[in-house]
């Protein structure tokens, strides 16, 4: 199986500032990878580059089989990005926001209901305008969009930030559930311990470059089915929880 994400010496610029200064990284299909590094290291930029938002000016970059150097648009329907901002229209209700995002991505509208339920956005809050929501609620809506779109590659930028304890657990559940469905997850987080429990391995970024790939973090044959199965089996509690929630 080809890797879900493959970057080689990828350079990406914001004006004159190099966001990515030659990133080389490979993520297998179905892997859950934790991106770590100091602030401003390029974690967010790498996620945005994977979503086709940031142009790659030199090097090679391939995501889900799409060559990002040649075409940054076609990949976008297949990835879901949870950014620092939640991409919501203030004037629209939660449900309207969700419906627009899902229809734009040509995902089945039927997924909206379960997604709202999964994130606890049913009832009155579903009809509330996005402008009236708290930060935590906005992130829940943004996550609901991802769930309903069911992308092949999840790009989560600090998904735990701004959420209460219950919300954080929901994020972990979503990641495990995405993995169960065979999706790949890239997760940038400062919460090293929490991220370590849900990720297969960690990749460290500093100064716009991947500086170390700790060999121990990812057992051999990363990204292949047996490993995923094994990893999931190692955490039966989460899987059970997900099973309940989704079913």
């Amino acid at each position, binding site marked *: 199986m080809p890797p879900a994400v493959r970057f080689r010496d990828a350079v990406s610029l914001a004006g004159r500032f190099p966001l990515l200064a030659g990133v080389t990284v490979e993520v297998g299909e179905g892997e859950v990878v934790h991106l770590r590094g100091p602030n401003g290291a390029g974690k967010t930029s790498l996620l945005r580059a994977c*979503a*086709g*938002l940031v*142009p790659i000016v030199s090097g090679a970059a391939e995501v889900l089989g799409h060559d990002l150097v040649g075409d*940054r*648009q076609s990949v*976008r*329907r297949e*990835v879901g*990005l949870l*950014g*620092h*901002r*939640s*991409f*919501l*229209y*203030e*004037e*629209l209700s939660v449900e*309207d926001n969700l419906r*627009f*995002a899902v*229809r*734009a*991505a*040509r995902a089945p509208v039927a997924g909206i209901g379960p997604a709202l339920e999964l994130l606890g956005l049913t009832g009155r809050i579903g009809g509330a*305008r*996005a402008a009236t929501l708290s930060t935590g609620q*906005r992130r829940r809506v943004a996550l609901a969009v991802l769930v309903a779109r069911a992308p092949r590659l999840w790009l989560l930028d600090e998904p735990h930030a701004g959420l209460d304890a219950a919300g954080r657990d929901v994020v972990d559940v979503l990641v495990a559930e995405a993995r169960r469905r065979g999706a790949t997850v890239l997760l940038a987080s400062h919460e090293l311990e929490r991220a370590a429990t849900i990720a297969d391995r960690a990749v460290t970024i500093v100064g716009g470059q991947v500086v170390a790939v700790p060999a121990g973090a990812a057992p051999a044959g990363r990204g292949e089915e047996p490993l995923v199965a094994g990893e999931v089996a190692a955490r039966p509690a989460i899987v059970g929880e997900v099973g309940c929630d989704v079913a």
Partner: protein
Amino acid sequence: MWRDAALVAGKDLRIEWRSRVGLNQVVPFAVVILVLFGLALGPSRRVLAPATAGLFWVAVLLSAVLAVQRSFAVEAADGAGDGLRLSGLDAGGIFVGKAAAVTAQLLVLEVVLGVVAALLYAAHLSGFVMLAASCVLATAGLAAVGTLYGALSAGSRVRETLLPLLFFPLVAPVLIAATKAWQAGLQGRPGSGLGWLSVLAVFAAAYLAIGTVAFGPLLEDG
């Protein structure tokens, strides 16, 4: 593309309907302009009535800039612009959708403004078909250029000043043709306005075509 256009237009109109910025701010703004023109030109009916068409269209042009700015301010809030790019919508569809939403809003505004102008300037709204047809064509052209330039200047910090500077010289033909068509309609000889309608149609068609093609590259600037 048409499906995406309908989706975007529906979304924009729904936002406008919910927020009512257009109804509560742009329409009163346009009416204020008509009143100011009346004050500037004096109370004489002989001056105001023949100038109705021109003043009406200048007011529409000024409001169009506001509508376009509003249309892109909505996308800029909360990273929604990124969201739009991430959504996987066809760029041409986004352009047509946004232009259609602006057109619809401006048409509503023109109806209100037309009535107000007729009252204030004592003009007879005769030749109704002519007036309506020129409104539709002229507004489509304005919205196409506005959306194109709105996207062109959206990313920059100077967009509030850049957009009018780009927009007004470019739509001079629309102002001329729409005013002439309206004069023809108001004076009860709509036949003489047909040539102007074709100018408006050519303008709208040219810029809708350019916008559909050029919008993709523009969106990627952000």
